């Protein structure tokens, strides 16, 4: 593998999200907070979701980890904001498919920047980094439904 292959992993847009994360921070007490970590490597995310009337009104995250985990969190928050819960979960399952290297059917939903993470599927050891934020989102949405 050469550095060209590395470029399929570390795309410019990923590095941009890593360097300049969107939606970094926390939300007030009204929001749902989910702490998740990747126990094998130490990546950690604290995700705040504000879900009202079945719509993700706001999403912010704190945490620490590698470029893949943090850029994925940044992109995820950007993507799910304003989406209804069903759409957010659909995106999450599309993302899982993408990580498995499967063709994704994205007629209805535009993944935008997130598609830059496609290259991660070729680096099996890094897939868990990319999916951490999405797992947290799924858990947050589920716990919000339980509350309401």
């Amino acid at each position: 593998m050469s550095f060209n292959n590395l470029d399929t992993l570390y795309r410019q847009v990923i590095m941009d999200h890593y360097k300049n994360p969107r939606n970094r921070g926390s939300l007030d007490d009204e929001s749902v907070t989910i702490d998740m970590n990747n126990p094998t490597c130490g990546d950690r995310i604290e995700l705040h979701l504000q879900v009202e009337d079945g719509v993700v009104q706001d999403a912010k995250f704190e945490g620490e980890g590698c470029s893949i985990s943090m850029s994925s969190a940044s992109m995820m928050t950007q993507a799910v904001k304003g989406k209804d819960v069903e759409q957010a979960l659909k995106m999450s399952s599309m993302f899982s498919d993408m990580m498995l290297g499967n063709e994704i059917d994205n007629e209805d939903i535009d993944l935008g920047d997130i598609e830059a993470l496609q290259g991660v599927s070729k680096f099996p050891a890094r897939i868990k980094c990319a999916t951490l934020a999405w797992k947290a989102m799924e858990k947050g949405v589920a716990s919000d439904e339980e509350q309401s």
Partner: protein
Amino acid sequence: MDIQAIREQFPILDQEVNGHPLVYLDSAATSQKPLPVIEALESYYRQNNSNVHRGVHTLGSRATDQYEGARERVKDFIGARSTEEVIFTRGTTTAINTVAYGYARHVLQEGDEIVVTEMEHHSNLIPWQQAAKYTGATLKYVPMEEDGTITLESFRSTITNATKIVAVTHVSNVLGTVNPIKEIAAIAHEHDALIVVDGAQSVPHMKVDVANLDCDFYAFSGHKMCGPTGIGVLYGKKEWLEKMEPVEFGGEMIDFVGLYESTWKDLPWKFEGGTPIIAGAIGLHAAIDFLEEIGMDQIEAHERDLAAYAQTKLKEIDGLTIYGPKQRSGLVTFNIDGVHPHDTATVLDAEGTAVRAGHHCAQPLMKWLDTAATARASFYLYNTKEDIDRLAEGLNRAKEYFGDVF
């Protein structure tokens, strides 16, 4: 030491990874296996495979002889007084848990103390956390110096007459710190406490004599010392092992079985319930023969050379932090400023260089170092200075690569 001749004994090293010759710098996680070990496993399965300690047939005798021969070999290798003191386990974790379940949980009471350090691998920490919770004993940490060493004075001021167990690693898997076990054992014994030593990172790399160190329990793994996975050793002083309860009950460990009561075999078998790790023990025997033929002192000296060389080479890289003391075992743990260790390891892997990135099963130590994760290059008898040159080149490229994209 003829490193090229040694390398030829390790077929796995002779391959390309991602288009580059493999540089394996993750032996602290697990070591590679030399031909004599691979062949010992193969020959056992091809010719002698059978269950041990039962039946009267010839294969059963051969397997039993080989299994017990391995115990004899381990006894000599670590300087135990008798084979009764050598218990085969699945690895270091199981060995330490055997002490925690078979001894600590039976004797500890509220008000007793277990003394540990912040540099422990989770395998020598969580069993004690759990034992403390179960018994009401208190878990106490010996304070560490800034360079990642612990002074004897700190042990002296932490261990008290209430201390019943001191659990400490011989060599830190992250910092490379070598703890003065003999002196720590003496302090523990002044207070009638027992010392349990995690030897996972010491036995593969240096001469260890458990009787001379005067430790009560000493645990290590076969797979980090050229042996197979799934085999490890718990050494324990006979007087403690005799008082201990077995932790696994069933076949192989019993003497007389009645409908409502049973009695246990003698040491060491009372701790080896079920069909034992026969092939693993035989592989470990071959690994010890292999290491001793080269010489543990030679291996230790070679690794210290490599560690010193690595420190020099890595210090030349701007913005690279090395963790741990100057005097260390054969590993170096580091971070490049602004580059997460996962990313560093991925760039190195693209060049065929294998290092570990993460918390190294030492989360409290990561907290102490004030970092979430680190990268670690660890050396063994088959590594060369050229391997370290390749590491340094790779690290420079990782810096460039992430410097460019930022």
